[in-house]
C-alpha cells in the first residue's frame, strides 16, 4: 500500500536506515530525478549515494543532518511525522549533470529506546527553480553593481554640481511665490557684495532697480501661473556699494515639485556685455546718422573671425562687387595705395592695442583703379579683458576735396611765382633809382624810394609766405642743414626788424652756447615771424624778450611779449593754416595768418616742437626747440 502510493508520487522517496547505513527503500521516481534505478541505491548503500552529492554541498548536508538527528533523538517518544530537516543541494545525475534537489527528511522509525533508526527523505527536483533563482541572483548582482556604479557617478557629479553651483559666477537662488529668498549660492556675494546668508528670508524685489521692478513682478506672475515654465529677462540689481549691475536671470517654476517647492532663479552678471552693447548701439546710431548725412561708407570688422562687413556705399567707393570681396582685413588693405598701406596697417595695430585713435587720410584705389583719397575714422570695441572684439569705422571719399586743395596749392604756387617776377623788377628799379638819387644828393626822393623799397619788402614776404604754404603742403621744400650760431642769427634778425620797428626794443638773453645744426634761413624765418608777431600783438608795450638755452637734447628758444595775449580757445588753433587771433576790432592786424602755420611746419621738419603760453591781457610766450644734431 505504502509502496504503491510512494511510487505514484513525482517526488523521490527514500527510506534510510541510520544504523545499517542502508537504503531500505527508494521509489521509482529516482529514475526520473537521477537516472538511477531504486536498486542502485538500495544495493550500493550510503557510500555510493554520498559520492553523488556535489562536493560543495557535502559538508553542509552532513552538518545539518547530524544536527537534525540530535534534535530528533531528544524528543524520544514523539510520533511527529513532520520533517525534521530540509535542505537544498545538488546530486549528480547518471548522465553526469548535477540536479538541484529539495529534500525534506522526517523520522520514519524509532528503536525501542526511542532513538531514530530510519528516516524518510522526500526529494523534489528543483533544478529549474534554482536556475531561475541563479539567473535572478546574477541579475540582482549586476543590478547592484550598476546601482553602485551609478551611485558613485551621481555622488561625483553631485560634488561637481555643488562645486559648480557654489563656486561659479552663476548664481542660483530659490524663491517662493512672493519672491522671498529661500536659498542662494555663495556666488551671490560677487554680484551683490553681501553674504548670501544676508538674503535669506528677504524679498528679492528689494534689490532690483526700481525701473525694472514692474517687469520683474509681471514676469513672476506669469511664471507662477504656469508650473514648470521658464522666463528669462535682463534687469539691474543693486550692489551693496549702491551701484547697479546688469544680470540675466532665468526663473523656473518648480513650486509643485515636492523636492524643490520653489521658483529656481539662475542669474549671471552681464554688466560688461550690456555696457559694450550700449556703446555699440550708441556708436551705431551715431554712424547711422552720419552715414545718412554725408555719403559715408561704414565698415564693421569682426576681429575674432577676421570678417569685414561693408556698407553698400563702400562697395561703391572702391568699385568692388560684393562677390569679389572676401571680407578679410588683408583684402581691405589691398585697396590702399602701396605708399600709404604700411602706415595704415601700423595705425590699425596701435589702435587694437588701445594706443592710438584711428583717424587717417590715405590714398586708395577706386573704380577702375583710379586714385582716390579716403578719410577714415574708426573705433575699437574691447571686451572686459581688453581684448579687441570689433572695429567699427567710417570712410569718406575726399578725393574731390583733395583735388581742390591740390589745385589751390598749385594755384598759390603759380601765382606767387608769377608775382615774383614783377616784384623783382620793381625792387631793382627802386633800389637803382635810390642809388642814383643818393649819388645826386637828392635825399628827399631817395627817402621816398627807401619807403617804397620797404613796402616792396613786405610784399616779398607775403609772396614768400604763400609760396611756403604751397611748398609745405606738397612737401617740396628742401632744407639745407648747416651748423651756425643761433646767438648770431638772433642778433641779425633783431637788427633787421629793429631797423623797421623802432618802438619795440628786442632784448636778447643768451644763457648758453648756441651752436645748432639746422636750415639757417628757415630758422631765421621762424624767429622773424615770432618777433614780428610779438611786436604786432603788443601795440601798447615797448619790448620783446628773446631768450634761448641749450640742454642735452635741444636748444630751447622763447619769444616773449607783453601784449594782448591769446584766449585759451584760440591757443589750440594758432598754428592752423590761415588762422588769425580773433580781435574785437577785426582787421586791426595785417597778414595772411600763415606765419605760425609755416613756423610750425619748419620746426616739425627739424624734429623740434613749437608751443605757447599765454594769458589774455598779459602777453604771450612762444617757445620752439631745435634738436641737437651733428652736422
Amino acid at each position, binding site marked *: 500500500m505504502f509502496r504503491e502510493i510512494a511510487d505514484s508520487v513525482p517526488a523521490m522517496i527514500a527510506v534510510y536506515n541510520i544504523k545499517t547505513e542502508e537504503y531500505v527503500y527508494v521509489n521509482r521516481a529516482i529514475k526520473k530525478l537521477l537516472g538511477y534505478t531504486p536498486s542502485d541505491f538500495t544495493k550500493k548503500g550510503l557510500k555510493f549515494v554520498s559520492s553523488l552529492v556535489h562536493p560543495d554541498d557535502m559538508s553542509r548536508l552532513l552538518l545539518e543532518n547530524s544536527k537534525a538527528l540530535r534534535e530528533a533523538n531528544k524528543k524520544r517518544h514523539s510520533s511527529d511525522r513532520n520533517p525534521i530537516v530540509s535542505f537544498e543541494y545538488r546530486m549528480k545525475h547518471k548522465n553526469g549533470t548535477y540536479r538541484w534537489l529539495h529534500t525534506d527528511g522526517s523520522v520514519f522509525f524509532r528503536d525501542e529506546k526511542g532513538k531514530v533508526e530510519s528516516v524518510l527523505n522526500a526529494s523534489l527536483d528543483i533544478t529549474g527553480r534554482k536556475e531561475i533563482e541563479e539567473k535572478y541572483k546574477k541579475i540582482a548582482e549586476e543590478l547592484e553593481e550598476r546601482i553602485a556604479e551609478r551611485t558613485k557617478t551621481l555622488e561625483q557629479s553631485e560634488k561637481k554640481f555643488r562645486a559648480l553651483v557654489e563656486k561659479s559666477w552663476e548664481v542660483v537662488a530659490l524663491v517662493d511665490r512672493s519672491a522671498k529668498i529661500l536659498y542662494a549660492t555663495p556666488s551671490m556675494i560677487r554680484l551683490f557684495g553681501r553674504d548670501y546668508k544676508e538674503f535669506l528670508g528677504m524679498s528679492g524685489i528689494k534689490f532690483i532697480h526700481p525701473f525694472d521692478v514692474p517687469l520683474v513682478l509681471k514676469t513672476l506672475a506669469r511664471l507662477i501661473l504656469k508650473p514648470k515654465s521658464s522666463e528669462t529677462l535682463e534687469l539691474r540689481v543693486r550692489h551693496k556699494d549702491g551701484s547697479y549691475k546688469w544680470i540675466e536671470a532665468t526663473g523656473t517654476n518648480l513650486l509643485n515639485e515636492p523636492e524643490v517647492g520653489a521658483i529656481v532663479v539662475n542669474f549671471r552678471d552681464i554688466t560688461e556685455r550690456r555696457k559694450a552693447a550700449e556703446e555699440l548701439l550708441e556708436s551705431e546710431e551715431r554712424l547711422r546718422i552720419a552715414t545718412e548725412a554725408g555719403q559715408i561708407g561704414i565698415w564693421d570688422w569682426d576681429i575674432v573671425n577676421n570678417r569685414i562687413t561693408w556698407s553698400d556705399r563702400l562697395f561703391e567707393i572702391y568699385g568692388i562687387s560684393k562677390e569679389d570681396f572676401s571680407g578679410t582685413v588683408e583684402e581691405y588693405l589691398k585697396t590702399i595705395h602701396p605708399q600709404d598701406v604700411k602706415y595704415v596697417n601700423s595705425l590699425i595695430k596701435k589702435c587694437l592695442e588701445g594706443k592710438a585713435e584711428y583717424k587717417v587720410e590715405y590714398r586708395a584705389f577706386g573704380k577702375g583703379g583710379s586714385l582716390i583719397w579716403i578719410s577714415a575714422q574708426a573705433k575699437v570695441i574691447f571686451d572686459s579683458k581688453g581684448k579687441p572684439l570689433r572695429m567699427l569705422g567710417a570712410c569718406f571719399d575726399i578725393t574731390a576735396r583733395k583735388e581742390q586743395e591740390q589745385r589751390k596749392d598749385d594755384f598759390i604756387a603759380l601765382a606767387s*611765382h608769377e608775382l*615774383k617776377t*614783377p616784384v*623783382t623788377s*620793381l625792387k*631793382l628799379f627802386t*633800389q*637803382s633809382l635810390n642809388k642814383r638819387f643818393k649819388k645826386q644828393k637828392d635825399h628827399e626822393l631817395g627817402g621816398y624810394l627807401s619807403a617804397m623799397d620797404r613796402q616792396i619788402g613786405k610784399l616779398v614776404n607775403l609772396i614768400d609766405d604763400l609760396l611756403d604754404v604751397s611748398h609745405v603742403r606738397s612737401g617740396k621744400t628742401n632744407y639745407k642743414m648747416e651748423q651756425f650760431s643761433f646767438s648770431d642769427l638772433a642778433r641779425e634778425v633783431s637788427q633787421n626788424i629793429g631797423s623797421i620797428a623802432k618802438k619795440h626794443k628786442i632784448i636778447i638773453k643768451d644763457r648758453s652756447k648756441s651752436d645748432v645744426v639746422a636750415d639757417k634761413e628757415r630758422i631765421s624765418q621762424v624767429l622773424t615771424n615770432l618777433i614780428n608777431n610779438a611786436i604786432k600783438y603788443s601795440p601798447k608795450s615797448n619790448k620783446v624778450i628773446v631768450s634761448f638755452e641749450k640742454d642735452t637734447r635741444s636748444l630751447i628758444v622763447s619769444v616773449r611779449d607783453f601784449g594782448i595775449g591769446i584766449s585759451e580757445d584760440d591757443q589750440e588753433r594758432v598754428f592752423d593754416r590761415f588762422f588769425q587771433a580773433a580781435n574785437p576790432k577785426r582787421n586791426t592786424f595785417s597778414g595772411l595768418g600763415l606765419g605760425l602755420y609755416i613756423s610750425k611746419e619748419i620746426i616739425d621738419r627739424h624734429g623740434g616742437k613749437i608751443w605757447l603760453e599765454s594769458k589774455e591781457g598779459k602777453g604771450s610766450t612762444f617757445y620752439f626747440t631745435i634738436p641737437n644734431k651733428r652736422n
Partner: protein
Amino acid sequence: MKKILVIDDDEGILEAMRLTLVTAGYSVETLITDGKDIIKKVKNVSPDLVILDYLLSGQEGKNICKQLKSERSTGKIPILITSAHPNVEKLAVEAGADDFIEKPFDIDELLNKIKKNILL
C-alpha cells in the same frame, strides 16, 4: 668796361637789369628770348658774364647753360642763373652754372655775385 649779357623772357626784368647794371657801371646787352638761337647770340655778343633765367619759355635755362659750357668759344664765360624758385639752385650748379641768385633779390646781393664771378 665789362660787358654783361642778361637773358630772360620777361621784358620788365630786362629793363630793370639794364638800369641796375648800367648804374653800377657795366655795359649791358639784353636778350628777350623764346629760347631760339641763344647760343649764336651769346657768341656774337661775347660777354664777360651771362645772367640767365632758369625757366625760359620754350627752352630750359639748364640746357642752354650746359650747351654754353660745352662750347669752346663760350665755355669760359661765367654764368649766373636766376630763378624765382629756390630749389633750382642745386639744378643750376649741376648744369654747370657758376652761381645762382634767387628772385627777387636786392641790388647789392646781385652786384656782389657779379663781382665775384665776372671775368677779369
